[in-house]
């Protein structure tokens, strides 16, 4: 059985960043990624990031992915990369099973960082399973990674940042965005993104949601309706609109199934996106050799996932006896960056969610 000092599950922003800081500390690792490319969801993010320079602000997500991947490739002796490989089991005796090309392999490790990210939530409405109804992030991948248009006439459900940004990117690709429907009374995402859409003539309807999709083999139209203050459909306000694609952008859920499988203490914290592992400030779960970083322990921006990855890589290396030459300063810097990223009104949900989670840990 092959042994690694550190196994990192997930080759997105958190996983790549963790591998880099581990390698800088002298700790070797393997990154296991189920896709055939690294970079996670950064590879489709054509917009420039906010935050500060340390999290690559003013750089497009696609270019941040390249930077993070190149950083890992600088340590060919310390970082091994396994793509198109899926982790299908984690066992209490520090062993995982991976699957590649129909072949199972067992791997043992000293420490494990789970950085599996999050997946898009779904929404319940009639005929929501018709082809042509996609996650907003999925459409972003289709357009920005593969250069394929989702359709000609699209409606976006949800006005959080992903809904707003993907609507703008649909317009950039030449697609008509007919409406953005927001069930709540106010627009969910940043005003700067909403204003860009409004200037281009896109209708953002608050207190409106989809009621039904129509079509036989694929999506042909949708019925949307106004909602009252209790989020109930108001009878008589239904309108039909012809579309060939519908994007659902109603939030993300942490991809925490591997953590549940191995028996980590989990808690449902709605402000962090759903079921998340109970962790301490070192990103350590209730099982002392299993760590987490990125959206899997609370849905935030990719910027936070990068810093969480750096912090976790640094801490795990130290725990395994590889102390970074600048450990104290680095740790302080990463913790400060996370505090800054979570400051302000848009960071409130994360701050509250983490407090709820940490209280659990203290018990």
């Amino acid at each position, binding site marked *: 059985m092959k042994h690694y000092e550190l196994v990192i599950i997930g080759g997105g922003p958190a996983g790549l960043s963790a591998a880099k800081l581990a390698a800088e500390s002298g700790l070797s690792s393997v990154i296991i990624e*189920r*896709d*055939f490319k690294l970079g996670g*969801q950064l590879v489709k993010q*054509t917009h420039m990031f906010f935050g500060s320079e340390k999290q690559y602000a003013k750089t*497009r997500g*696609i270019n941040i992915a390249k930077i993070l991947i190149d950083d890992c490739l600088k340590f060919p002796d310390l970082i091994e990369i396994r793509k198109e490989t899926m982790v299908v089991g984690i066992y209490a005796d520090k062993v995982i099973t991976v699957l590649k090309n*129909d072949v199972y392999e067992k791997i043992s490790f000293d420490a494990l960082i789970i950085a599996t990210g999050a*997946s*898009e939530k*779904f929404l319940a409405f009639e005929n929501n*399973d*018709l*082809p*042509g*109804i*996609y*996650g907003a*992030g*999925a*459409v972003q*991948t*289709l*357009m*920005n*990674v*593969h*250069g*394929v*248009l*989702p*359709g*000609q006439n699209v409606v976006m459900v949800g006005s959080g940042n992903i809904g707003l940004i993907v609507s703008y990117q649909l317009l*950039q*690709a*030449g697609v008509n965005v007919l409406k953005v429907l927001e069930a709540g009374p106010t627009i969910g995402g940043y005003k700067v993104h909403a204003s860009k859409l409004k200037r281009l003539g896109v209708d953002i309807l608050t207190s409106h949601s989809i009621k039904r999709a129509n079509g036989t*083999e*694929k*999506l042909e139209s949708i019925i949307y309706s106004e909602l009252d203050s209790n989020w109930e459909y108001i009878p008589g306000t239904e309108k039909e609109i012809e579309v060939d694609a519908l994007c659902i952008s109603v939030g993300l859920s942490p*991809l925490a199934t591997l953590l549940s499988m191995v028996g980590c203490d989990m808690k449902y914290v709605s402000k962090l996106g759903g079921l998340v592992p109970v962790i301490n400030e070192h990103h350590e779960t209730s099982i002392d050799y299993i760590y987490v970083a990125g959206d899997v322990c609370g849905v935030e921006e990719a910027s936070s996932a990068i810093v969480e990855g750096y912090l976790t890589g640094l801490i795990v290396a130290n725990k395994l006896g590889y102390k970074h030459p600048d450990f104290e300063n680095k740790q302080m810097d990463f913790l400060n960056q996370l505090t800054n990223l979570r400051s302000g009104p848009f960071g409130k949900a994360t701050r509250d969610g983490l407090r709820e989670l940490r209280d659990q840990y203290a018990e």
Partner: protein
Amino acid sequence: MRIEKHPILDFENKTKIAFKYNGVDVYGFTGDTIASALHALGIRKLSSSIKKKRPRGFYCAIGNCASCNMIVNDVPNVRTCITELKENMIVLEQTNKGELL
């Protein structure tokens, strides 16, 4: 339908990749997944639901939701949204749970 012109991204200089979809000769391009190549050809339905046989397209495009499972080179339940398109692949719509080989 493919993006012709884009203000940020450049999709030029791609090489054609020939493959078979439900017995028909079709092609995609380098960088495609099986699902993206089919979508560009106008094919939205990739599989059927197991009991009611309702049509299914992809949903998540990250290999998580299983809605894009197809039979590729005789292997069922291939997640076509994260499987890179390769020359001469034989791709079939999947309408059941898949048969053991």
